[in-house]
């Protein structure tokens, strides 16, 4: 079944991921790609506590996941790959680990402009997303499965709340 969702979400594992996507997709494992979390036992325990016992969580760095991606793709269970930021996901697109990117949650921070209710982007982050498309990836925004996946061009043209 392999990885069925590659999501940028600054909250990483949370309700939308575990319940909103996890239940309809019958997710069996989550690959959490974050260099800080990968080095912290406490952070890993925090995220493990948030998932049902039948869902396995793998903690990877942006570098280590590249070498392990073939194994994840061959896994018979449906899986979700998460990054907490756009830059990390771009690294995985460039490494040909990811071909379709879901923008799931990039929240307010100084210097960012609101594009959707759950997407705020700085100019350099918008350029990184465009770069993903130039690298051949499909980039859409969609917080939960019941909403329409919005193409990147439409996201970047948006100026308010959807």
């Amino acid at each position, binding site marked *: 079944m392999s990885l069925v969702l590659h999501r940028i979400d600054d909250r990483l594992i949370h309700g939308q991921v575990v319940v909103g996507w996890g239940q309809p997709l019958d997710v069996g494992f989550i690959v959490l790609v974050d260099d800080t979390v990968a080095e912290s036992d406490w952070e890993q325990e925090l995220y493990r506590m948030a998932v049902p016992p039948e869902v396995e969580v793998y903690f990877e760095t942006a570098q280590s996941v590249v070498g392990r991606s073939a194994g994840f793709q061959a896994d018979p269970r449906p899986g979700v790959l998460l990054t907490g930021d756009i830059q990390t996901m771009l690294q995985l697109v460039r490494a040909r680990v990811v071909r379709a990117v879901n923008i799931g949650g990039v929240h307010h*921070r100084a210097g960012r402009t609101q594009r959707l209710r759950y997407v705020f982007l700085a100019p350099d982050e918008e350029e990184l997303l465009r770069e993903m498309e130039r690298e051949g990836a499909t980039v859409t925004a969609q917080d939960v499965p019941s909403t329409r996946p919005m193409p990147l061009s439409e996201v970047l043209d948006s100026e308010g709340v959807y």
Partner: protein
Amino acid sequence: MSDAEPVERPRAIVAGHAQFAHGLVSAVQQITGRGAVFHPVSVVDLSGPDIEALLRDTMLRMDIRVIFTDLQAGSCTMAARRLLRGMDDAVLICGVNLPTLLDFVFATGVPDSQAAQHALERGRAAMNVTTSSGSAPGT
């Protein structure tokens, strides 16, 4: 001597997705008239650090050491767990329901952290299933 009702101090935060917290606290108010025991925090599209800052500020400002949240995997729960790290006198109860809050309201004379743990047990016990052959707890 005044006839005014004593103002109740918030003793716990209720935090959750969308309007979950405000809804639960409004139900407590309707049933007991003592919704002020809880400070509801409704979270819509905030980042993890922003939720953590919001909860921290509320706890310190109101001198609260008990947090009730809605969902094990929820952002409020994750933020509260980070917040409680090293805060020895604080308690997080996850998966809150109305019976839990009602028990907490009436638990006075004991530390709030102890009242919260008692309320958790009452909230668990209050769940049951009813079928045509009768009721059974939590089956």
